[in-house]
């Protein structure tokens, strides 16, 4: 706030000297996000231009880096105290980390104190809260589904699986028919984290799982629920029984997706925002495709209706010199008109109320959003919901499981040790 007063004082002084217009023109907001792909920039570039045209006194300096490098880039910027005024954040722990350490601006009053709150379903705001205060607004909502090739399913007489047992049986049928049933690229092991996150949500009671992820469980109980080991066992089983393609640890997710889209694999676990990657003229597009949420596991103690997914969104730097302008910019990006354009151009699914319509989104995307609405809640991405260090242990462990060089019990033991250390560390701060 001191900055604001200073700016105000400066403005007043310059105005009194008669240079008001020159000073008015220059508020520059830095804006960093993780969608540098041409199809996404095709939305962001015109949106920024439109905002600048409507607000001649504000300039936006936009920068974008891809998903993986973004995780490093934002930390480097924070470390060198060059935090962008407006920046992308995943919801869950990734964003909470910024809130906890005083890096993100508390925007509770700006959202809840105005009609801005009506733009979003409460469920999409929830993952951006830390200690009941809001630190981010969602731009899209994403979830994970098992996609399948309709042609291959029909040729082999397979119905959409209703139970987890059906799903494993389908894998076997397809394997016997000569397919590598599921395309899976785990060179960057966030891909495994989506499977493990979903299995955790199915096998571990919700309140236990959330307390473990947030490290608020009692130290004696932290990550001790047997569901975690069971989840890793189920993941390992998918590999050992030949559901995944060969060499998943050496394939990137996009190469695996290429194989699925080319019609070589019958199934792939994909995100709603990736639906646009399947063009109608690809072999998969021609064969027809559908999707289903991974079915619940018989006897699992988790919440059966949960879906793995999360909103993505934007935060404002806690030390920005222009909080009002930054809020104005975010309000603009999350206005229904902009959100409709966002959906239409990027093919993503916006979390802004009423932005996804049959006019701007595919049939499958609308169905996907309906499935999110029907879910009892979202289990956030594991690698952005657990603390970073425990996640690294689990992710490396997922690669060891695929190679058969480590056991679920040993991996969970290491996760627990790491989580205990982080928990202790946090207690010290």
């Amino acid at each position, binding site marked *: 706030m001191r900055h604001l007063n200073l700016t105000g004082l400066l403005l007043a002084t310059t105005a009194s000297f008669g240079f008001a217009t020159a000073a008015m023109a220059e508020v520059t907001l830095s804006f960093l996000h993780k969608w540098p792909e041409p199809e996404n920039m095709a939305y962001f570039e015109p949106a920024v231009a439109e905002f600048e045209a409507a607000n001649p006194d504000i300039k936006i300096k936009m920068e974008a880096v891809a998903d993986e490098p973004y995780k*490093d880039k934002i*930390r480097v910027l924070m*470390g060198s105290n060059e935090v962008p005024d407006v920046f992308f954040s995943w919801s869950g722990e990734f964003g909470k980390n910024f809130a906890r350490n005083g890096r993100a601006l508390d925007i509770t009053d700006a959202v809840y104190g105005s009609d801005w709150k009506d733009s979003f379903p409460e469920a999409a705001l929830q993952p951006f809260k830390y200690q009941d205060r809001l630190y981010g607004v969602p731009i899209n909502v994403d979830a994970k589904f098992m996609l399948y090739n309709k042609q291959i399913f029909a040729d082999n007489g397979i119905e959409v699986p209703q139970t987890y047992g059906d799903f494993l049986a389908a894998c076997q049928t397809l394997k016997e028919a000569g397919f590598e049933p599921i395309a899976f690229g785990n*060179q960057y092991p966030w891909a495994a984290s989506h499977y493990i996150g979903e299995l955790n949500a199915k096998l571990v009671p919700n309140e236990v799982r959330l307390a473990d992820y947030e490290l608020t469980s009692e130290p004696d109980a932290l990550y001790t629920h047997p569901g975690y080991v069971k989840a890793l066992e189920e993941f390992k089983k998918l590999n050992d029984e030949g559901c995944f393609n*060969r060499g998943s640890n*050496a394939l990137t997710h996009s190469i695996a997706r290429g194989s699925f889209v080319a019609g070589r694999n019958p199934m792939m676990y994909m995100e709603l925002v990736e639906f646009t990657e399947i063009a109608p003229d690809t072999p998969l597009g021609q064969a027809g495709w559908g999707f289903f949420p991974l079915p619940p596991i018989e006897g699992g103690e988790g919440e059966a209706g949960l879906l793995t997914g999360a909103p993505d969104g934007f935060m404002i730097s806690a030390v920005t010199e222009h909080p009002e302008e930054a809020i104005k910019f975010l309000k603009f990006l999350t206005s229904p008109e902009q959100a409709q354009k966002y959906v239409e151009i990027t093919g993503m699914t916006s979390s802004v109320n009423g932005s996804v319509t049959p006019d701007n989104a595919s049939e499958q995307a609308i169905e996907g959003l309906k499935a999110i609405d029907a879910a009892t809640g979202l289990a956030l991405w594991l690698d952005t919901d657990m603390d970073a*260090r425990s996640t690294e242990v689990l992710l490396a462990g997922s*690669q060891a499981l*695929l190679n058969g060089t480590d056991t679920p019990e040993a991996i969970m033991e290491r996760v627990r040790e790491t989580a205990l250390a982080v928990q202790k560390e946090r207690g010290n*701060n």
Partner: protein
Amino acid sequence: MKAQTLRRIAPYLFLFPSLLLLVAFVYAPAVENMVYSLFSWSSVRTDSRFVGFDNYRELFANPIFWRSLVNNVLYAVISIVFQVFFALVLAAVLVAGVFGPLLRNLFRTAFFLPSILPVTVVGLLWQLIYQPTIGLIDQVLWATGLQGLSHVWLGEEATVMISVILVSQWQWTGYMIVLFMVAIQAIPNDLYEALRMEGANRIQQFFHITMPGVRESTLILAIITIFGAFKVFDIVWVMTAGGPNNASEVLGTHMYRSAFRNDVSGYAAAVATVIFFITLAVGIIQIRLQRQD
């Protein structure tokens, strides 16, 4: 008198600007890094806490650190074999005129070319070559009936590090060959002539003239190779990011992951300090060996 004083201080005046830059950009950050390694802090957090040598204790207890160090040593040893030993032999063969000038230039250029490619390009290229099923190596193995040798080269813990190291040799051995060729060509030709008149064959010439003649260059190139092996980061990060299951982690990637993924910057600074002392030790050995000449 005045001119004499000026002459005395002139060298220092000339040295001053570069010394200032060195202190500001090399020595001061290195010292600062050592101070950082005594704190528990992260780039996201705004506070930090003095923890003494806790980061080092944690480091030496961490199996991933030891695996990284072993990988770096393996990197150094294999690099010495290829980039110093093989490179020297190949350079001697090329200089000795076993091939005609056309073939010699062709080989030299072919060996040298990989070194002008950016590391990221080389990494992605070889990632495709190593790819299971669709990669070139796997296809050749299947086509020649050697599928029993097929591996998921970058996906198995046993093969990943050696696969990455070999790419590095592919890229840099040619570069070293050219450096050795220059050194060999600087050896006076009459020495060879004298030995030839004594009836020495090419192998004897290599051991008695070429090797002693390039001793100095060999030492420097070996040291540079070892430095490179301990500082390696880019090719590993591009090809495997240290995976699977940290099997191809080197000190550089371990440091990077600690700082920018795990948010333990104090620990990362401790890794950096260890890398600093390892390379410093190698440097001191080099200076000692050179002094003996």
